[in-house]
């Protein structure tokens, strides 16, 4: 099973009216990979992740997650996905454990109380389980958001800029949780701007530019000058010379 492909995207196209955001994107992820999706603002990272998350339908092309096609078999895919977006997706007027309990019921999690306890321990919020989420700091909310995403033990974890707005400590705590998830053989796809941070974590780096994956490299094949240099080169190659654009 080590080599099986879990996410398969080919020739994905996404249009918003006349505007084409993703133009023929190809993307494959094997089970257990930790893919960092890099790219400038407006490259289509969030759009792509929303399509993978089944929240947005592709205009054309094929998307399949764990053998199920999107958007046709969306419900089956949803069961296998955990998603963290830059919004917390939590209810401020419910406590931490009530939020988890609610989402646990939505996902049909077995032995819910036990699982909620486990997840709260994992994200380090056991002591505040009975506090309203409204009173949480941004870092705590983000940790609980991750707890919400892994509650049903999904095969794939999708994260959209999870570090945005977090301070140093919160980032490290977040990374620790993520590494624990990844260490259990779960597949992770994460968009990020923080190259230094993902360089330590991810096993593969994909650069998204102008609606396509323009470069991809495994961590063990990274050039000696590091991720930043690789990223800059990838973008420079992807951006066509000015004459060609006109």
């Amino acid at each position, binding site marked *: 099973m080590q080599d099986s492909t879990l996410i398969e995207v080919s020739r994905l196209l996404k249009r918003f009216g006349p505007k084409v955001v993703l133009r023929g994107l190809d993307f494959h992820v094997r089970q257990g990979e930790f893919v960092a999706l890099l790219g400038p603002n407006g490259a289509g990272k969030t759009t792509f992740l*929303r399509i993978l998350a089944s929240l947005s339908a592709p205009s054309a092309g094929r998307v399949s997650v764990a053998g199920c096609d999107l958007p046709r078999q969306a419900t089956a895919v949803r069961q296998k996905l955990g998603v963290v977006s830059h919004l917390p997706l939590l*209810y401020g007027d419910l406590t931490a454990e009530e939020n988890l309990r609610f989402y646990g019921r939505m996902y049909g999690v077995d032995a819910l109380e036990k699982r909620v306890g486990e997840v709260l321990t994992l994200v380090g919020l056991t002591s505040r389980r009975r506090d309203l989420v409204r009173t949480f700091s941004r870092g705590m909310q983000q940790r609980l958001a991750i707890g919400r995403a892994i509650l049903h033990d999904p095969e794939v974890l999708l994260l959209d800029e999870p570090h945005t707005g977090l301070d140093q400590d919160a980032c490290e705590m977040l990374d620790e949780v993520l590494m624990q998830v990844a260490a259990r053989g779960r597949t992770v796809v994460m968009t990020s701007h923080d190259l230094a941070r993902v360089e330590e974590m991810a096993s593969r780096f994909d650069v998204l530019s102008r609606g396509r994956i323009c470069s991809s490299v495994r961590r063990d094949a990274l050039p000696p000058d590091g991720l930043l240099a690789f990223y800059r080169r990838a973008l420079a190659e992807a951006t066509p010379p000015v004459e060609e654009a006109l």
Partner: protein
Amino acid sequence: MRGFLRALGAVVWKDLAAELRSRELLSSMLVFALLVIFIFNFALELDAVARANVTSGVLWVTFVFAGTLGLNRSLAVEKDRGCLDGLLLAPVDRTAIYFGKAIANLVFMLVVAAIVLPVYSILYNVNLFAQGGLLWVIFLGAEGYTAVGTLLAAMAVQARTRDILLPILLFPVVIPVLVAAVKASSGYLQRLPMEEILPWLQLLLAYDVIFTSIAFMVFESVVEE
């Protein structure tokens, strides 16, 4: 089917639990409802004679205005913190989410009615509970109203102009429910014979069925991209 009911129950429970804690939605609906009644009192000179004819109208206008407030809030909460995405990410039928929200909204409207009715009874020294049928009419009217209202509020909160949009979208659509509810209520309040009330009750029931099923059918297109 079990998964459907479980998800539906979870959404209802979540809305009620959050509301029980913050009481934001209910308290604003209630205060607003009472204010409307007081404004009507001065605007219409609600003396005993006038009251007999307009009580049902006043009550329904009150419910409808307060209901708009509640519907907007109930769906805005989902939209603002990305919770709507959270709901949509769950592997459940979209209609379970719709019915969950609609039932929670119906409960909120009925709670408001349960407080407005006795207050109105005390203020005007009438017993609105003397006619049990009126409670049925309020239930049926509120059901039809929240069935369409939940759907349209889900659209309104996704628009740029959302704060002003819901009443404009909702009122012209929901008029048939209102006409039937007002007529049936005033039938009970004026103690008309049952055969004069019954047609309105049947209409109200038919409208409820029509609006609920159409909202049920199109809800997915409102939330799915």
